[in-house]
C-alpha cells in the first residue's frame, strides 16, 4: 500500500479536483443510492415495496436521531414525539384547514422543530440518563395529549388525508411514493454528512471526547447540542409528514414509546452516529419486522399480536453484546479484511502541508498595550464542604508578561486556576478578563474572548489525530455555524484553518506525527500538542497547568524558549508549576499561595527571599531554609 510519489499539497489542486477529493464519500454513496432507488420500484415485489417505502419514511427520523446520538452524544427515547408532531400538524392542516400540501408539510416540520426548541432550552443542560428519561416523558406527553384532545381526534386520530399531487401527477402507488420520498432522504443525508464534517460537527465530536477541553476552546456545548436537537426534530417531523401521506391516518400510537424504540433500534443496528448506518438500519428493521410477522407465527403457533417485540428484544441484546458498533463496525471490519486482497492502483496521497512555506511563530493576540491589566482577580474565595480552598485572593496580571503561580501541595493553586479558566465557579469574588467578568460563567465565554488553557491531566481529543486536535484550537477563529456546516459552505475557512494548524505543528516539531492518533503519542509530545492546540486559538491570555511535568530536559527548554518568545510577541501567560526553579527563571512575576491565601506577589527575586514564602514552602525555620535555598539555586 505504499506509494513512491510525493504527496500533493491540497492547496495546489484546482477547485473542482479539491471538491471531489473532500466529498468523495458522500458523492459516491448518494449516487449509488439514487441508482438503486430508481431501480427498486421496477424490480421489487409488492411486499418488498411496502418495506422499502416505510424504510425510506423512517430513515428520516433515524438519520435525525443518529445525529443527535452520535454527534451530540445525547440519548433520546422520544424521537417519535417529533415524528408525531410533524404528522399531526400536517394532517390537521390538510384535512381541517385545507392548506396546500407543501405549506402543511413545512408547517409540520417547523412545528416539530419549534417544540424541540421549547423542550430543549431547559433540557439540553441535562446529562445522559436524565435527558433520556425526559425525552421518554415527552413522548408520553405528546401521545397522551393527542389521545385526550378533541382537536387531534382523540383515539381515532385524523383520517382521510388525501394523496399528494406532484406536478399534476397523483402519487397513488408505492412506487411513485418511493420516488417521492427518496430525493428528500438523499438531501437529508447530504446535509447530515456535511454537518458531521463541518466545524460544528468536529466541535461536537470534541465535546464527546472532552467537554472540558472543547469548552476551553470556545465551544458552547449547550448551544450546539440544542441546535442539533432542533435539527433532529426537523428530520423526524418531515418523516411524520410522509408517514401521514402514506398511511392516510394519524393516530396517537405514532408518538408512542414503541415507535421511539424502533428508531433507536435502527440507529443502534446501523451503528451509532453513522448517517449511512441509520439508513441501513431503517431498511433492516423494516425488513426484519416484515419477516418476523410471517416467521414467528410459523415457529411459535398461536403467537399473535406484537411478535416483532420478541425479535427486536433479541436483536437488540445480540447487537449490544456482540457487535456494539452495528453494521458500520461490521462493514469496516469486512473492508479492512478485504482491502489488502484487492488488486488496485494506489491513490495519490494528499497532504495539507505546504513544505515550501516559511514557518513563523504561532500568532497571538495582544489587545492591550504591554503593562495594562489584562486579568483582574478580586476577593476570590472558594469554600466547599467546610474547607476554605481560597481565601480572598487578589491579583492583577499585566499584559505581555508571564506570571508564575506557585505554592506547596494543596495550597489552592489548581482551584484558583480552575476558577480563572471558568471550570469552577467561586463562592465569592470576581475574575475579570479584558474588563469582562468571566467568573461563574462557562469556560467557552472567556475562550471566545481569547483565554485558553492546557490541562494538568491532559484533555486530548482521542477520536481524532494530532492535527485534528490542533485544528480544533482554531474553533474560535471560525465563523461557520450549523447552517453553513450543513450546506457545506465552509471549505475555504476549513482549509485556511488547517494550514495554520500544520504551521503550528511545524514550529513545535510535531509534523512527523501530524496524522497519528492523538492517544498514541508519548506523554511529552501529547503535552506539546495540547500547547499547540491552545496556541491555535490565537489567545491573548494563555493559562498553563503544570506544563513542564513529564517533559524531558530538552523538551522543557524548547517549551520555555517558546513561552519567552510568545511573551515577547505580546502574549500574556499564567502558569501553575511545581518546579520552583523553572518558574523563577521564566516568570516576570511570581505569586505564592499557601493554604488558600496569597502570601507573596512580586518579582522572582523578591519572592524567593520572602521569609513567609520560605517558611510556607519548606515548612522549616527561615534560616535553615535560606541556606538550603541558596544551595538549590546553585545547582540549578
Amino acid at each position, binding site marked *: 500500500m505504499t506509494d513512491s510519489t510525493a504527496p500533493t499539497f491540497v492547496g495546489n489542486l484546482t477547485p473542482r479536483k479539491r471538491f471531489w477529493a473532500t466529498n468523495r464519500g458522500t458523492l459516491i454513496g448518494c449516487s449509488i443510492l439514487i441508482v438503486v432507488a430508481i431501480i427498486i420500484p421496477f424490480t421489487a415485489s409488492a411486499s418488498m415495496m411496502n418495506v422499502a417505502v416505510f424504510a425510506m419514511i423512517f430513515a428520516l427520523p433515524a438519520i435525525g436521531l443518529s445525529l443527535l446520538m452520535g454527534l451530540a452524544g445525547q440519548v433520546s427515547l422520544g424521537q417519535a414525539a417529533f415524528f408525531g408532531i410533524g404528522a399531526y400538524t400536517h394532517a390537521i392542516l390538510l384535512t381541517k384547514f385545507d392548506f396546500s400540501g407543501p405549506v402543511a408539510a413545512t408547517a409540520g416540520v417547523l412545528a416539530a422543530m419549534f417544540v424541540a426548541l421549547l423542550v430543549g432550552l431547559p433540557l439540553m443542560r441535562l446529562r445522559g440518563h436524565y435527558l433520556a428519561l425526559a425525552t421518554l416523558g415527552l413522548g408520553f406527553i405528546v401521545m397522551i395529549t393527542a389521545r385526550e384532545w378533541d382537536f387531534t381526534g382523540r383515539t381515532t386520530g385524523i383520517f382521510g388525508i388525501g394523496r399528494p399531487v406532484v406536478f399534476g401527477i397523483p402519487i397513488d402507488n408505492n412506487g411513485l411514493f418511493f420516488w417521492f420520498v427518496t430525493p428528500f432522504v438523499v438531501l437529508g443525508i447530504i446535509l447530515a454528512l456535511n454537518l458531521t464534517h463541518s466545524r460544528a460537527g468536529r466541535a461536537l465530536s470534541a465535546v464527546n471526547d472532552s467537554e472540558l477541553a472543547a469548552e476551553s476552546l470556545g465551544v458552547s456545548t449547550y448551544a450546539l447540542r440544542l441546535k442539533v436537537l432542533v435539527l433532529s426534530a426537523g428530520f423526524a417531523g418531515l418523516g411524520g409528514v410522509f408517514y401521514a401521506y402514506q398511511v392516510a391516518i394519524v393516530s396517537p400510537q405514532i408518538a408512542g414509546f414503541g415507535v421511539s424504540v424502533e428508531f433507536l433500534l435502527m440507529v443502534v443496528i446501523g451503528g451509532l452516529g453513522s448517517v449511512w448506518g441509520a439508513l441501513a438500519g431503517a431498511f433492516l428493521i423494516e425488513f426484519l419486522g416484515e419477516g418476523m410477522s410471517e416467521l414467528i407465527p410459523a415457529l411459535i403457533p398461536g403467537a399473535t399480536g406484537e411478535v416483532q417485540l420478541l425479535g427486536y428484544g433479541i436483536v437488540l441484546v445480540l447487537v449490544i453484546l456482540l457487535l456494539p458498533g452495528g453494521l458500520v463496525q461490521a462493514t469496516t471490519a469486512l473492508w479492512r479484511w478485504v482491502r489488502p486482497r484487492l488488486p488496485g492502483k494506489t491513490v495519490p496521497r494528499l497532504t495539507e502541508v505546504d513544505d515550501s512555506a516559511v514557518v513563523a511563530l504561532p500568532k497571538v493576540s495582544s489587545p492591550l498595550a504591554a503593562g495594562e491589566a489584562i486579568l483582574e482577580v478580586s476577593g476570590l474565595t472558594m469554600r466547599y464542604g467546610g474547607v476554605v480552598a481560597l481565601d480572598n485572593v487578589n491579583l492583577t496580571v499585566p499584559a505581555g508578561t508571564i506570571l508564575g503561580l506557585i505554592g506547596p*501541595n494543596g495550597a489552592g493553586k489548581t482551584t484558583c486556576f480552575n476558577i480563572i479558566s471558568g471550570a469552577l465557579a467561586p463562592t465569592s469574588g470576581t475574575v475579570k478578563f479584558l474588563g469582562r467578568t468571566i467568573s461563574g460563567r462557562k469556560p467557552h465565554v472567556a475562550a471566545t474572548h481569547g483565554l485558553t488553557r492546557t490541562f494538568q491531566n491532559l484533555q486530548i481529543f482521542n477520536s481524532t489525530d494530532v492535527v485534528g486536535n490542533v485544528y480544533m484550537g482554531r474553533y474560535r477563529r471560525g465563523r461557520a455555524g450549523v447552517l453553513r456546516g450543513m450546506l457545506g459552505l465552509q471549505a475555504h475557512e476549513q482549509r485556511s484553518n488547517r494550514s495554520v494548524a500544520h504551521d503550528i505543528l511545524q514550529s513545535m516539531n510535531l509534523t512527523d506525527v501530524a496524522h497519528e492518533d492523538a492517544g498514541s503519542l508519548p506523554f511529552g509530545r501529547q503535552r506539546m500538542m495540547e500547547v499547540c492546540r491552545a496556541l491555535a486559538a490565537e489567545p491573548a491570555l494563555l493559562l498553563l497547568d503544570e506544563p513542564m511535568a513529564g517533559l*524531558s530536559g530538552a523538551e522543557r527548554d524548547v517549551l520555555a524558549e517558546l513561552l519567552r518568545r510568545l511573551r515577547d510577541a505580546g502574549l500574556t501567560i499564567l502558569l501553575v508549576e511545581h518546579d*520552583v*526553579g523553572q518558574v523563577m527563571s521564566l516568570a516576570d512575576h511570581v505569586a505564592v499561595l499557601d493554604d488558600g491565601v496569597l502570601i507573596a506577589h512580586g518579582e522572582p527575586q523578591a519572592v524567593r527571599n520572602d521569609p513567609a514564602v520560605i517558611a510556607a514552602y519548606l515548612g522549616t525555620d527561615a534560616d535553615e531554609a535560606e541556606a538550603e535555598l541558596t544551595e538549590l539555586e546553585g*545547582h*540549578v
Partner: protein
Amino acid sequence: MTLLVSGLHAGYGQLEVLHDVSIEVARGEILAVVGSNGAGKTTLLRAISGLIKPTSGSITLEDRAIAGKPPEKMAGFGLTLVPENRLCFPSLSVRDNLMLGAWTKKGRGDVDAVLDLFPRLKNRMGQAAGTLSGGEQQMVAIGRGLMADPTAIMLDEPSIGLAPKVVSEIMEVLARLCSEKQLAVLLVEQNVRASFKIAHRATVLHRGSVALSGTPAELIELPEVRAAYLGGAEVS
C-alpha cells in the same frame, strides 16, 4: 523480601508509564518512593494494587504472585493501599469506615489498635467521614487500611494538602506502626523531606524508571536529590 516487584511495565492504553521498574520492601522497613509529578509513582501503586493491569513483570507478596490479580483480592492477600486523596466513604461514620476496612475479616478488626495510633479519632467515631478535616480523613484512611491486618501497606502521597504539623504526626505514626507491627511500608511521596525522615531506604522514580536507589543518607548527598529535597526543583 515481603513485597517484590520486578521488571514491571505498566501504563494506560497505548501509553507506557512505567518502564522496567524493580523495587523491594521487607517487613519492618519503610521504602520511600519519590519523584516529581508524572514520574509514575501513582501508576506504580495502582499496578501493584491491581487497579490497573501491568503489561509485563512480576509482583510477589510473601512468595505469592499477585501481578494482574483484581484489586478486591489484595486485602485478602495482606496488601492494602491508602489511596491518593484518602477516598474515605463520606456518608459513612468513622466507625463504619474502619469496619469496612476489615471487610475481608467479616468486619472484625482491631479498632482499639487503630484508635491507639490515632487518638484524635476517638471523639469522631460517630461522625460522617466526609465532614472531617484532611488530616483526620488521612488518619481514617490509614486506619481503614490497617484494619485488614495487612502484611504490607502502601500509601499514596499521604501528606498532600496537610499542614506540616499534621504531616509529621502522621509520619511518626507510620514509623511506629512499621516497627511495632513489622509491616512492609511502601510510601510514595512528593514531600521528600518528610518521607526521608522515616524511611529506611528510598528510590527515586524519574519518568517511569528507577533513577536512583539507596538509603536516604546516601541519596541526600547527590545534587539532584538535594535539589528535590526541598520539594521544588526537578531531577533532570
